[in-house]
């Protein structure tokens, strides 16, 4: 495979990954109910994560409040996209499946 072909494939993979990452933000924009549900899920995840670090108590609530303000209220679209990209796609190796699928689709014979 020459360098030009690799560049095209790289661009194809990049576009596919960006499309998958941007999907939750698009869904949140199109469906208001999905927006609400994803925000609730994000808030629960943030609180559970902080409680895992600090235990149950006032500091957990304070830190969770700050994080929920920034990640759920102010930058919800980015947080949803980052959550899907990092914790679902990356930890479940979905990126590998996408790259594998594109490679199989462009197979020579």
């Amino acid at each position, binding site marked *: *495979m020459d360098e030009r072909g690799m560049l095209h494939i790289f661009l194809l993979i990049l576009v596919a990954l960006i499309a998958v990452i941007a999907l939750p933000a698009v869904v949140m924009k199109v469906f208001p109910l999905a927006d609400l549900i994803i925000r609730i899920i994000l808030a629960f995840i943030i609180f559970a994560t902080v409680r895992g670090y*600090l235990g149950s108590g006032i500091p957990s609530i304070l830190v969770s409040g700050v994080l929920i303000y920034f990640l759920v209220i102010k*930058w919800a679209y980015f947080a949803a996209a980052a959550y899907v990209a990092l914790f679902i796609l990356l930890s479940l190796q979905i*990126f590998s499946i996408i*790259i594998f699928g594109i490679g199989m689709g462009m197979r*020579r014979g």
Partner: protein
Amino acid sequence: MLENALLQGLALLSIGEFFHDMFLVLKIFVLLTIASWVVMHLGKGPLSIVVIVGFTYLMLFSPWTWFFEGTYVLLMLFTLGFAGIFIDFFFVFPGFAAGPGGGGPPEAKMGSQGGVMQRMRLFSQRPGGRRLPPPM
């Protein structure tokens, strides 16, 4: 009219504010990691509070903040399997794209599982080569 729309668009984007907020969130996550690590090793006591304050200054307010925050981001990414993407793209993908042992250059044949098995079989048929088990 157009100028107002442009200004509103820029205000909506607000890249600087976004990065400022995300760095603050990153600092909070680093602080959580420090606090959790110290409490896990030292328990809840005055010594752990002193150590948490010291580490917090070193990792969040010293001139080396960028290093610790970048290390934290890299640690999280590699913990989640970020390196697997590079392995798939640079090592696995060329083999799949080359096809099963044909069409591509020799280095691409080595990339696919079929090409590797073919070469291993040829190697085993040489004098002194180890016999491979039959294919399943």
